[in-house]
């Protein structure tokens, strides 16, 4: 077996550099730490240069760091985002070798065996890798060695940034490194230090039988220095398990005779949609944006795209979204190939729709929204949603139907007018102070005599979002002599020290 060439890429500052890239306006002189919730409060994950200088360090509890450096700014760490980002970098690194793998929380491994000459040799390749990541804003420390363990150790504990070790130089290069470089946990490292075996070389000098006897119980690699030692020296084999490429959901259909008549595109599309949805179902994904391509014999490609309000996997729905627009396609000399590609998809669990029947009766609200948007344009569609607030005009919110609002457990017995004015209109009212019901009022130049009144319903301002001068409202349900019913309110009460005498407003109609 020829010796393998493994590249270890270590991003010592991944989290902070990623944060910095997302927030380009950060003042670097300001000590900053990224922290996440630990069992006993916040724990620092990463710090910037300024924070490091003022004494903060990863692993420290937030309160301790704050005690040392009171000006430390705290942002929350995004470990999931870091991991995703690292996976993306791993895919990106496949330009140098198809065999790339994510290594822990902050490193990558590449198997570049036999491939370095494409990039001008190993030294040139490492330089290229470092520069490439540097341009993305990530500091990287690199090493090439014949084993994963060797490359890992030299990449993290080696003296220089780019280390290249030939097969015959492995033991010499590793010998002076501390035992921690063997990818063992802290307990194992502490034990080795207590035994006086502080370097890889010292450990390698101990007879294997003696070591085997002492670490035989430790099956887990990170607790077993002997396994790790053998992996680093290449006596046991360890391979880079490459990242799986991302699945692309795309279905293609060729036809023998070019299609010139657009009306028959629909069954074709239905066929494609069914196949795409099957593929998505297997991957537990749902469509958010889908692209239909029709390839014309003369080299022109017609494209249609639709987006959906929620993940979908229903072929009929997809077809309906495209259907009206298919007619506008210019077939020219005819299409001979069709493709349907999922451009944006989200996780969507498989569920059973029901026994016997495949689809529920009626139409799902998200599907309706999709159809209306396709027909009327996304910007023209909005939908009222109940919003938990006592303030009448806040109790409904207009949105695209996807917002999440505070829990709705509306007090149903509160009767609200059918029509609520966007802007309450001033009315003049005769009433008994302080909070008697109105007797007579004038609205839009018309005088109304009050026949019946109910109230007041007192609604106080939402103190957490309004100024302290905002006044409470006393709402009355009014019926005039003609039986018309109004909803009017008095803004404020006498002597509430929030302005002059209270004003009256018409806020809605019950007819």
């Amino acid at each position, binding site marked *: 077996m020829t010796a393998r060439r493994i590249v270890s890429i270590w991003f010592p500052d991944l989290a902070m550099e990623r944060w910095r890239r997302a927030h380009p306006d950060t003042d670097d002189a300001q000590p900053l730490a990224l922290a996440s919730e630990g069992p006993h409060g916040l724990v620092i994950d990463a710090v910037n240069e300024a924070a490091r200088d003022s004494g903060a360090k990863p692993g420290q509890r937030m309160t301790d760091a704050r005690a040392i450096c009171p000006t430390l700014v705290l942002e929350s760490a995004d470990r999931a985002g870091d991991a995703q980002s690292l996976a993306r970098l791993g895919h990106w690194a496949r330009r140098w070798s198809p065999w790339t793998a994510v290594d822990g929380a902050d490193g990558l491994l590449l198997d570049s065996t036999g491939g370095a000459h494409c990039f001008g040799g190993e030294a040139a390749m490492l330089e290229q890798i470092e520069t490439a990541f540097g341009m993305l804003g990530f500091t990287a420390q690199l090493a090439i060695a014949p084993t994963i363990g060797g490359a890992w150790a030299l990449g993290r504990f080696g003296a220089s940034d780019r280390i290249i070790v030939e097969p015959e130089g492995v033991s010499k290069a590793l010998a002076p490194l501390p035992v*921690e*470089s063997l990818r063992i946990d802290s307990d194992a490292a502490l034990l080795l230090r*207590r*035994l006086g075996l502080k370097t890889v070389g010292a450990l390698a000098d101990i007879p294997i039988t003696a070591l085997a006897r002492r670490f035989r119980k430790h099956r887990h690699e990170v607790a077993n220095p002997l396994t790790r030692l053998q992996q680093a020296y290449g006596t046991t084999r360890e391979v880079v398990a490459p990242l799986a490429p991302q699945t692309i959901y795309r279905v293609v259909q060729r036809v023998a005779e070019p299609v010139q008549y657009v009306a028959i595109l629909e069954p074709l599309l239905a066929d494609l949609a069914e196949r795409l949805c099957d593929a998505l179902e297997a991957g537990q994904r749902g469509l958010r944006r889908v692209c239909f391509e029709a390839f014309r014999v003369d080299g022109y490609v017609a494209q249609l795209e639709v987006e959906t309000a929620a993940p979908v996997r229903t072929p009929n729905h997809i077809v309906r979204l495209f259907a009206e627009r298919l007619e506008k396609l210019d077939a020219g000399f005819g299409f001979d190939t069709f493709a349907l590609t999922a451009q944006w998809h989200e996780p969507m669990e498989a569920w059973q729709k029901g026994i016997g029947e495949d689809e529920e009766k009626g139409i799902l609200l998200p599907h309706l929204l999709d159809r209306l948007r396709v027909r009327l344009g996304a910007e023209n569609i909005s939908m009222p949603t109940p919003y938990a607030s*006592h303030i009448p005009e806040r109790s409904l919110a207009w949105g695209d139907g996807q917002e999440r609002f505070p829990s709705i457990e509306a007090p149903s017995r509160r009767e609200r007018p059918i029509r609520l004015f966007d802007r309450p209109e001033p009315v003049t009212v005769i009433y008994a102070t302080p909070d008697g019901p109105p007797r007579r009022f004038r609205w839009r130049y018309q005088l109304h005599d009050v026949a019946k009144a109910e109230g007041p319903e007192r609604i106080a301002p939402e103190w957490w979002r309004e100024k302290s001068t905002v006044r409470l409202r006393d709402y009355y349900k009014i019926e005039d002599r003609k039986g018309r019913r109004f909803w009017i309110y008095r803004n404020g009460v006498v002597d509430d020290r929030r302005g002059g005498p209270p004003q009256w407003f018409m806020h809605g109609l019950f007819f």
Partner: protein
Amino acid sequence: MPDPPLTPAKHTLKRLSEDFGTNPPTPFVELGVTSCFSFLRGASDACDLVEAAFCQKHHALGIADRNTMAGVVRLYSEAKTAKLRPVIGCRVVLVEGHEFLAYPRDRAAYGRLCTLLSQGKMRTIDGQWQDKGECHLTLDMLAEHSEDVQLIALPDEDIDAFTETLPILAARLPTMQHVAVSYLYRGDDRARIMRLDALAKGQGLSILATNDVHYHTPERRPLQDVMTCIREKTTIADAGYLLHANAERHLKSPEEMQRLFADWPHAIAATREVADRCTFSLKELQYEYPEETVPGDQTSQDYLEQVAWEGAAWRYPDGIPDKVRRIVERELVLIRRLDIARYFLTIKDIVDYARNCDPPILCQGRGSAANSAVCYCLGITAVDPAQVDLLFERFISEERREPPDIDVDFEHERREEVIQHIYDKYGRHRAGLCATVIHYRPRSAIREVGKVMGLSEDVTSALARTIWGSWGSSVDESKTEEAGLNRDDPYLKRVVTLTEQLIGMPRHLSQHVGGFILTQGPLIETVPIGNGAMADRSFIEWDKDDIDELGIMKVDVLALGMLTCIRKAFDLIDAHYGQRYTLASVPREVPEVYDMLCKADSIGVFQIESRAQMSMLPRLKPRTFYDLVIEVAIVRPGPIQGDMVHPYLRRRSGKEKVEFPSPHPDHGPPDELKNILNRTMGVPIFQEQAMKIAIDAARFTPEEANELRKAMATFRSRGTIERLESKMVSRMIERGYDLDFAHNCFNQIKGFGDYGFPESHAASFADLAYVSSWIKHFHPDVFCAALLNSQPMGFYAPAQIVRDAREHGVEVRGPDVNYSDWDNLLEPVAPGRSAVRLGFRQIGGIAKGDAEEIVRHRDRLYLDVEDVRTRTRLPVATVEKLAAADAFRSLKLDRRRALWDARALKQAPDLPLFTFSEERDEGEETPVMLPAMPVCEHVVADYQTMRLSLKAHPFEFLRDSYEERAFARAEQLRDCKFGVPVRLAGIVLIRQRPGTAKGVCFITIEDETGIANLVVWPDVMARYRKVIMSARMIEVHGRVQKDDDVIHVVADRLEDASSQLLALSDDPLQSQVDRADHVVNPVLSGLHRHPRNVRVIPASRDFH
């Protein structure tokens, strides 16, 4: 260092009772009152409610908290001050969803209500152990206990449903005569009230008006909303309909209520009827002492006299001294007059139990009543009245008729036995622990409010950080700015205001550390009892202030680590030196003991071992027991703030004449203060002295003195304090006293406020301080072992205790599999001299059971590591831990070798066949040469495994380099002149910033020759904050300061030298590297260092 109070002081009315007139009776009484003891529901405390009620001309006020009586005493005492009539009740919430206001008419009905609540709190409906804070009641339970309890049904939101349930309720609950109605501006109020009125009439009931009060003023609505959010774990923006639409649920005046209910006058009249029918008052909860402490048909007083004289004869086998006889006689007369004999007998019973345990549990009483000759004769205390002047009469106030106060401390490891004995003897229905009300402290308040208001964690913790320590009472403005927050931001202002309102609100009830209430009749008829979070604990709903307010007796059964230590020391002295001591038989007033204390040689001694106490000892130079009493009391905020420390020291050292301020001859005898201040050289030091001055010199009536005493304990009532101050000062001046003296006396009273220390406590503590000093001086070996065996306790870590013992010539030996026990032992060295053998308890991760196994199988010496494993059958991991702690030295194995051997052990199954097979199945091993372990690494490993090292001080390895840099040793400070510049370096032991020291920070550092005390002024502190807060080892440039024998180094410059400590274990690693080889030079510098930062020095005790 003063201990912060466990809870913030109680919020009481700012005004005195004389400020309140009596309101004439009104037709309306508010009965639907939810106070803050309906946790996270009510937003006003009793004090606010009463004040608002008084101003609105109410003459009576109800209280009805949700399934609890926890707040009734507060309302009762505040209402008493404001001359309102408290109407005591509660809001009963059933698991079926029905709610009632429940107002008992008399004592018996009150007892039934308490029994009902207790049942709901102690057992779930299906009879299981109820969770803490829960209360499950059913309609059946309520019906069973509702006789003479006036019930007022609270209708559901849904009146249709209520229409159906009301007839059922009315049939089951004959005492339910009313339906509550509210006018809360909901729009449909009139219709609703009409409907309910008709509904009630249909059942022969009446409606009753209430405003469903949740706060005392509409301005409290925001706080109530925030509390709702905290309760429902949501934010204010998301709370939506969980919040109320308006702020109407506040206390309204009788006129306003009459106006709202003008159409339903019978609803108003009903409130008055219900209130007037409640004749029950909390005053009726007269305390009945348990009877079983008196045998036969003797009266308790006769029996007490009998046992007291028997005890006296036992205490003084050679005859009772006349002095003692006179004191005992006088005290017995007083006890008879106050009728508190059974109280003493109850305590004697508990103490007797502890004493008759096998082995006996050491205990000692303290508190005002404990300072009596009778207590000495009963064996409750150990302060001999023949030698020490006792103060009994001074503390028992005949006027107040309050129950006496005795706390009994027990060995902390065995207190649980005493508690269980009390439960066994008196039964859970007659014995209960007091509650402690847990209040929102500034930090918790800010966190909760911030979360509700949607502030980010960052802003919230920045706000939280603006409070130093956890007992600040308000948000400090300057600190808010320091944290980079904009004070003018209106949203933030609102958060701060809300936080300030939330601070001090009760959050939940917890059990008191050991305050027991014992009764003759069932306790559950006096107060509801609930379960604690700990298994087998139940506690009543009132805290100790409430108990005091009602004049109910309690016995504090407390745990004290030093008693454990002293008992273990007595046992060791008995075993090794053949003398049996008790607390009372330790030789008193031995000059050598005081000599030792005068040198501030007091590490480990009870109470006087702290830095502040140690720097006071050489100044005070205690020579008698009473000096120790003063020593204990003087290093406290009271005397410090009252500026009494220096005058006392000056007078004691003869630099100032002892004088007694006297009134004008027309106003009284010139020596009226001499009686009070004689024993403290004319300087008031104890709490009672200040009080006595108020009574004698300012002619305070007992009632005024009582108000003063309460005000002292309250930080919120600044207004009251100022009123009392002018009253006291002006009266003293009137009577011819010096203005400055009057002011100083009062300042001291203010200082006592939060951390008062009465003479009686000081005397009991001084007694233990003396006994522990005596042991330390005559048996330093015993003291060391006993102290280590009682850990965790006291001020110092094991490393300092061991170091101190070795400095006193005690040989200390490391733990060893062939010699050690679980506990630290004494090994005889020469007659009268022993060495301390450290026990396995000092090794981290070794369980007591493991240690016992090792001892049990040690019939012959262990031969090697394998032998330990096969004979003890301990897990290999445990053997490894022993090896890592270097416990195989007697087998000629050092740590490294033992660890190497231990790693090779096989975790064999415990089969007899294998266990006894001596043959080793893997054959002999090829010997491996491991590098020898340098001493400095051993020291580091010792600290890692035992937190101390006997081999060397880590500093010894650094001394050479410090010598070169002209750094002094700690021991050299003694020879330095005042003001000499000096450089020092040492490991940080303690950093403190006491509240009384105006921002000065004190740091204790240690090198191999001893400890040194650093003083860091605030400006230096600000500059070197990072170093002070983070360094484990510090280099100081400063100046020497001396005052008597007290030496300080005032720091000018500080540097972090922690990296030197790490070098101890990393050094050899670097030296192995060939420095010429730069290609692979594993220099472990740089910022991205991976290896674990091993912390070798135990974390020091920090402030913040």
